[in-house]
């Protein structure tokens, strides 16, 4: 179910700092900076239905899968959800987050609110560039994650320009890019998921987020192995 073209799931760039931390089998923190708003909506959904369905977003799947893969040392995923924050806002807060969490890897999902605001893409990419620098300066690796594919709303805000900007920022900054937009677009095209329907299946959220979590872990492992291969 979670299939995606390998071009979209390969890391492309190595994750040397994370690899070092995992190798030493020391506690490894992964910081996820995203814009999820779902945790708040959970209770609403729970109140409406007879039994509350816990919605798990992709960071929790990352922790679970990575712990299984690297049992020694211990992988901890810390999530900082910042809904309604532009890349510029996050950039300004990144140094403090990095100092607090001291992660080996940062997974930075950004662009949605920039697109909603119609922020200038050049300002957006500048902010991302600077953010990449901050993460590297703090001795951590980074994976950039694009906004999700949302066919219902892209008449109101066009995500494409921001996804492109992210792709370039990642390439120039030498960090892996997880193109969630393209992957979800692929799923829609292949009929794996239907993001368009008025009545989504109750498990859609969980399925998509567990797939994204799993593919992200695939990319992390790929980036870690790249480094190991190179160092031999």
């Amino acid at each position, binding site marked *: 179910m979670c299939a995606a073209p390998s071009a979209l799931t390969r890391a492309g760039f190595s994750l040397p700092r994370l690899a070092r931390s995992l190798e030493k089998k020391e506690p490894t923190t992964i910081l996820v900076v995203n814009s999820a708003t779902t945790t708040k909506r959970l209770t609403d959904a729970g109140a409406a239905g007879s039994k509350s369905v816990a919605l798990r977003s992709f960071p929790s799947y990352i922790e679970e899968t990575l712990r299984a893969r690297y049992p020694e040392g211990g992988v901890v995923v810390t999530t900082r959800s910042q809904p309604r924050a532009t890349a510029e806002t996050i950039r300004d807060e990144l140094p403090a987050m990095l100092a607090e969490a001291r992660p080996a890897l940062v997974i930075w999902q950004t662009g949605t609110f920039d697109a909603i605001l119609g922020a200038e893409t050049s300002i957006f990419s500048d902010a991302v560039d600077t953010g990449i620098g901050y993460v590297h300066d703090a001795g951590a690796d980074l994976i950039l994650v694009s906004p999700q594919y949302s066919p219902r709303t892209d*008449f109101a805000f066009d995500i494409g320009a921001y996804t492109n900007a992210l792709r370039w920022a990642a390439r120039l900054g030498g960090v892996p890019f997880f193109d969630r937009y393209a992957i979800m677009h692929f799923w829609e095209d292949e009929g794996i998921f239907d993001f368009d329907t008025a009545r*989504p299946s109750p498990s859609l*959220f969980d399925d998509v987020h567990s797939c994204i979590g799993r593919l992200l872990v695939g990319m992390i492992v790929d980036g870690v192995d790249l480094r190991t291969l190179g160092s031999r």
Partner: protein
Amino acid sequence: MPAPLAATANTPVEPAERPAPPTASGRDLRLDLFRGLALWFIFLNHVPNNVGNWITNRNFGFSDATEIFVFISGYTAAMVYGRQLDASGVLVTSARILRRAWQLYVAFIFLFVIYLAEISYVVGSFENPLYAEEMGALQFLAEPDVALVQALLLKFRPANMDVLPLYIVLLATFPPILWALKRWADATLLASFLLWLAVQFLGFNLPGYPDDRMWFFNPFAWQLMFVFGGWCGLGGSDRLARLVHARAVLVLSVLYLALSLAVVTSWYWPPLEGLVPPAIGDIIYPISKTDLSVLRFLHFLALAVVIVRLIPVQAPFLRWEAVRPLIMCGQHSLEVFCFGVFLSFAAHFVLNEVSGTVLMQLTMSVSGIALMVGLSAVLSWYARAERDRAARKKAG
């Protein structure tokens, strides 16, 4: 006479005798041609996920169709209303310009209602926890009183409709500018340039809605394009003729176009990746569309120089049947522009609801343009009929 005389400005009955514009055959058809082209490009660019917009000029240089549209609008507005200023006086002409601005305002509100309908449909019919954040962005509808008032104040401008508020503001403030342009053309242009310069350094803009958005097209910056068009339309372009036809200027323009093509290509074509050295990138980026970056302005000028050289005003192909659709669209820019915005909503809706294949994208692009041409043909026919009726009345 193949080209209808009806000017793009709203004068239902044009006086039969008009001072002869630069060419013997009436108006400069190149203006209509390129405004028509700009309108087509704006339509194509506004349909997201559309292969049709690969052909538009934004993919080949820093500037895009907006510059062309605003410049030519300034040019024709100054030309048409400047003439009326001589014939009917300042007061009447100002009233006509303001009436035009009012029409644009009404058109904007009309399009806004259509847009609201689309949003309401989406928000009302889809509940998907996966898209909580995206849908939340459309939740401003929860307070329609605020959203509507903001729209009436031109502060809330949905995507794809940004050009229209800009045009409204430019036209509504045009009467004193036109008056000044007629008296002190160069000083007015200089003042406009200084205002643009101030924006580049101080970065002020009009506020928007929701949240802390600003106007996507900063009117304080974009007025330069409009005033420069007006300055050219009132005879400035003749004074620039020597400069435009100078060999050195042409060479520089071609070089600049080539350079900008290379830079823009490097944004989406991997082999050219890294073409712009970081040191230069730091200076030239961001190339601001909001504040009309100097690189965009220069790119438009270079494009204009090359086009004026390539296509003389009497170029025979301007009279070909094949380019008539473009010229007709350019001659009814307000109606065709608004219709284009509406069509881009519609095309987007079809691509989402029915099918989003490449074939469908092409079909939507082509049929959208065909409909725009159809509308302009009807308008031309109507203007002609009205003119004939007026002429008969006069004769009888």
